[in-house]
């Protein structure tokens, strides 16, 4: 069968059932494609040549027993987890094997993929450009058809951003939808593991597989996500936040996102302008809370039970640990950490009020399309400001999805759909209806 590697997860499952090809042929095709393209794309840190079921690519800070887990860092260059993350145990029950561990910003700290200790992954649409981060390798692997589907993690946008820049689907579930056990913790009140896939229906299936509680993540709800597509868009209210279409958004990106929203209106949805007035504080709040939590979570790297010593942290990691330590230190704790946590309440309340007037919120994912590797790396603050549209949903713990909705100069643009807490069903439904009426998800980079 031609083009096995272009198939989505659902198409692959169906083709295997119909015996159009075997899992052996499936893995041979993907492994040969990986061998051919990896020298250009650098999306994998470790490749498993023994993969023998439906190939899954896993962000290299999610534990897969017996496979290296570097977290993109020199500190963990030779670390091998002795256990599986809960999501891996869940996913392996479905005729899936892990084909490799994907490249990422070190300890998930970054929005471009450039903070990896193993060199940046490269955008398959233009390998001189960034793929987005921090789940850079997972997004590249899916966009370039190097795996059937992938897992990433999203703390402030790290699934949605690379999905947008690479032209694929990425979903950050509601906080508590998926167990975080086995994923290296970055910011424990924000982290979520989620699907990085070729289509929205794939993302829906993967969410079903990975969702649900365990005895380890006490913030994960016990029920699994189950959802049959409801396919009702007529009369659905889409909130358009004016704060997400203000200064800083590239006009061509805006054009594509607005065209996508118009498409949803043509399909039967209604739009309503909403206000999220505390959006302007979101980046400041996030970088204070996330750094504080991360400084605590990375204290475990003492070189005793695992890993090498702390001078080997990369610059972004050192910056964030110090920022977080400062925000938590005596004399500064009330003014920084606690104050940020109070403003977080206001941001969460903004969404609660907005969802009285609408069912989903739509907007951009990133203010621009992919930019040249190295262009923004010397200005950390400029990089932080790129997270403006993805951070608020993370702070509120609500689900958010990115799907391809256009291109600017041959580079993908993502549409972000944000839903109510634990309402992944509605955003998946809307996304799937949009996807069914458009062809952006069928476009592939020329490689």
């Amino acid at each position, binding site marked *: 069968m031609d083009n096995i590697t272009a198939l989505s997860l659902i198409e692959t499952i169906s083709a295997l059932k119909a015996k159009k090809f075997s899992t052996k042929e499936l893995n041979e095709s993907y492994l040969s494609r990986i061998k051919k393209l990896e020298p250009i794309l650098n999306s994998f840190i470790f490749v498993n040549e023994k993969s023998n079921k439906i190939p899954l690519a896993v962000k290299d800070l999610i534990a897969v027993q017996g496979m290296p887990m570097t977290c993109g860092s020199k500190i963990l260059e030779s670390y091998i987890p002795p256990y599986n993350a809960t999501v891996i145990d869940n996913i392996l029950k479905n005729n899936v094997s892990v084909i490799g561990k994907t490249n990422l910003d070190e300890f998930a700290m970054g929005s471009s993929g450039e903070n990896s200790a193993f060199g940046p992954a490269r955008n398959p649409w233009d390998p001189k450009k960034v793929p987005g981060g921090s789940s850079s390798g997972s997004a590249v692997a899916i966009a370039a058809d190097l795996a059937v589907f992938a897992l990433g993690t999203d703390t402030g946008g790290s699934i949605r951003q690379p999905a947008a820049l690479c032209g694929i689907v990425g979903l950050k579930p509601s906080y*508590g939808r998926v167990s975080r056990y086995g994923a290296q913790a970055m910011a424990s009140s924000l982290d979520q593991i989620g699907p990085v896939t070729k289509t929205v229906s794939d993302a829906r299936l993967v969410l079903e597989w990975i969702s649900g509680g365990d005895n380890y993540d006490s*913030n994960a709800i016990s029920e699994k996500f189950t959802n049959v597509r409801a396919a009702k868009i007529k009369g659905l209210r889409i909130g358009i936040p004016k704060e997400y279409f203000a200064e800083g958004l590239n006009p061509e990106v805006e054009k594509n996102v607005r065209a996508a929203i118009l498409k949803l209106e043509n399909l039967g949805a209604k739009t309503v302008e909403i206000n999220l007035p505390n959006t302007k504080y979101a980046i400041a709040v996030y970088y204070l809370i996330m750094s504080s939590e991360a400084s605590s979570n990375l204290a475990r790297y003492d070189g005793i039970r695992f890993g090498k010593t702390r*001078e080997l942290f990369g610059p972004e990691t050192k910056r964030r640990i*110090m*920022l977080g330590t400062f925000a938590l230190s005596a004399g500064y704790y009330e003014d920084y950490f606690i104050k940020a946590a*109070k403003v977080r309440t206001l941001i969460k309340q903004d969404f609660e009020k907005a969802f009285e007037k609408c069912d989903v919120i739509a907007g951009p994912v990133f203010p621009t399309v992919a930019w040249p590797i190295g262009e923004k790396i010397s200005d950390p603050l400029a990089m932080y400001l790129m997270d403006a549209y993805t951070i608020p949903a993370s702070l509120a713990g609500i689900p958010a999805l990115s799907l391809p909705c256009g291109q600017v100069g041959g580079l993908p643009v993502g549409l972000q759909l944000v839903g109510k807490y634990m309402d992944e069903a509605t955003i998946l439904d809307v996304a799937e209806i949009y996807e069914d009426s458009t062809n952006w998800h069928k476009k592939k980079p020329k490689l």
Partner: protein
Amino acid sequence: MKTKTTGLKISRLAKLANVPINSEEEKLYESQLSKILEYVDLIESVNLITTQPTYNVSAGKNITRHDSVSKSITHEKALQNGKGNEGYFFTEGVFTEN
């Protein structure tokens, strides 16, 4: 709210955070972190008199489990990534003189 310049001694902060840095890095991080702190001072202007902090956005409360022994990983697996042998992790002495 204390400003960015008070208390931001990078050498002290690096020691507190246990993040070893050299003098070149000290200068670079001083300028980068000052800029970042200047930015996050944005939240100083927010009126928060009656607002409660949000530390956890999940719906759960008081999650407990039965107090019973359950299976864990083996001794060998627990030690496999550390330095040392004879069934122990080796570490720097705590009471030895430097």
